[in-house]
């Protein structure tokens, strides 16, 4: 049942937002797609929402080889933006694989990075969940855990992060632009998120009252023709990933010189598959290399009762994603006629 009534105010500017947001019980409202659900489920109980949706933080710009996306850019606008669809198709693909057209018109980039887990124990009032109620236990650990994490979980929490966009941004080494009362700062996406440990309620290193103002990616456009986002799910659309993989390769003289692999639906944060990446560097993009990357990508996975299949699924998804990237390359070569 929904949480108690809350108050509403609209932030006049970023400074005002920080002041309003610093009050206890305040929650920022951007697209509202996740916050409203959480409030209706009784999981989020803000005293007041601070509407930041109209702050001028929605631009998509390129500066040299840096792509900057405002935190309040709507997902559908980002995916359709020519800079993104042309030079960062991985981002566009990941966005379009998520949610529905209506949700993508509402949801923002910053909100998407912060969306809460879909673990049903988190989203059902009264069930054991350390993330929702510290010390209440983790119902998923010994309960239903098909969607739980393979990596990075703790005894306190096995929930997964479910954003598609964040997986693509993780693969591209994106950075999060943050504004606080003390001024702006910047965190790499991997440093932005936290693993649950003993404090699963803290999912990011964003301080209370701090605002995401944007994300930026440096030199990601070199993957423009060799990237893909693969989302495996139970139905064809409008579902969170069972497992997803963002893959990007950079080749020189037919040899992989840079490889990016990140996975969704398998960890409390978008998960870089660094060992899988390492297995690819210096090799030709062929089946043995991909098999090695797949095998190494799942090393260290810790299954629970119902999610063990995701280890093999992730291994195969990594291989499939790399094959898709290579097929694109082959197609591009055929069309372009260059090597």
């Amino acid at each position, binding site marked *: 049942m929904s949480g108690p009534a809350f108050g509403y105010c609209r932030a006049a500017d970023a400074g005002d937002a920080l002041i309003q947001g610093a009050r206890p019980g305040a929650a920022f409202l951007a697209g*509202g797609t996740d916050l409203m659900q959480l409030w209706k489920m009784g999981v989020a109980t803000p005293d007041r929402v601070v509407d930041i949706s109209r702050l001028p933080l929605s631009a998509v710009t390129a500066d040299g080889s840096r792509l900057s996306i405002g935190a309040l850019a709507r997902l559908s606008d980002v995916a359709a933006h020519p800079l993104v669809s042309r030079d960062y198709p991985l981002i566009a693909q990941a966005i379009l694989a998520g949610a529905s057209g209506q949700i993508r018109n*509402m949801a923002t980039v910053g909100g998407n990075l912060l969306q809460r887990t879909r673990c049903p124990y988190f989203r059902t009032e009264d069930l054991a969940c350390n993330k929702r109620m510290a010390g209440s236990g983790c119902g998923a650990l010994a309960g239903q855990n098909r969607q739980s994490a393979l990596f990075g979980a703790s005894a306190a929490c096995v929930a997964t992060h479910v954003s598609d966009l964040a997986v693509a941004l993780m693969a591209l080494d994106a950075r999060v632009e943050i504004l606080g009362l003390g001024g702006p700062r910047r965190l790499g996406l991997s440093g932005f998120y936290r693993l649950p440990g003993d404090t699963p309620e803290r999912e990011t290193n964003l301080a209370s009252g701090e605002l995401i103002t944007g994300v930026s990616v440096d030199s990601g456009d070199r993957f423009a023709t060799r990237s893909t986002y693969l989302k495996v799910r139970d139905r064809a659309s409008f579902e969170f990933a069972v497992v997803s993989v963002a893959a990007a390769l950079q080749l020189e003289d037919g040899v992989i010189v840079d490889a990016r692999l990140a996975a969704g639906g398998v960890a409390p944060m978008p998960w870089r598959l660094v060992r899988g990446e390492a297995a690819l560097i210096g090799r030709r993009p062929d089946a043995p290399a991909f098999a090695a990357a797949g095998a190494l990508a799942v090393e260290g996975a810790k299954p629970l009762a119902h999610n063990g299949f995701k280890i093999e699924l992730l291994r195969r998804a990594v291989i499939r994603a790399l094959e898709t990237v290579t097929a694109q390359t082959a197609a591009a070569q055929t069309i372009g006629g260059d090597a």
Partner: protein
Amino acid sequence: MSDDGRIALSLTLNGQPLEVDVAPCDTLLDLLRDQLGLTGTKKGCDMGACGACTVLANGRRIKSCLALAAAYDGEAIITIEGIGTLEHPHPLQAAFIRHDALQCGYCTPGQILSGIALLEDKPRALAAISEGMSGNLCRCGAYPNIVAAIAELAGL
């Protein structure tokens, strides 16, 4: 915000200016159905997962059950009541009738508004329509006829 915590909004609703006040936690769907009696917009899940509550806000389709009404101050909202009438239906409404693109009719207003927005994107294949409409669930299973109705207007 007024003393009793209600918030005054100015909307353009189905082409007409509207001054209305809402509670801070009212959704756009609550405003339409409960306060304004515009019940053509449906409440199916109230969690953004079924699409029955789809309306257009500044020309873009959104799920009104997740839209905080106060956040839409100044915007132009179009609901099913603003699309067409019994006497003068919108071409997509007429196509829905011809293709029998509805059974119980509860998801239908959302499907139509979603379809109208999708047609603006000029879908070029049936698969693009199906994928683009997947935010609108239908339990009776009118899906193929819905896609056929949209495809007809898309010239496919």
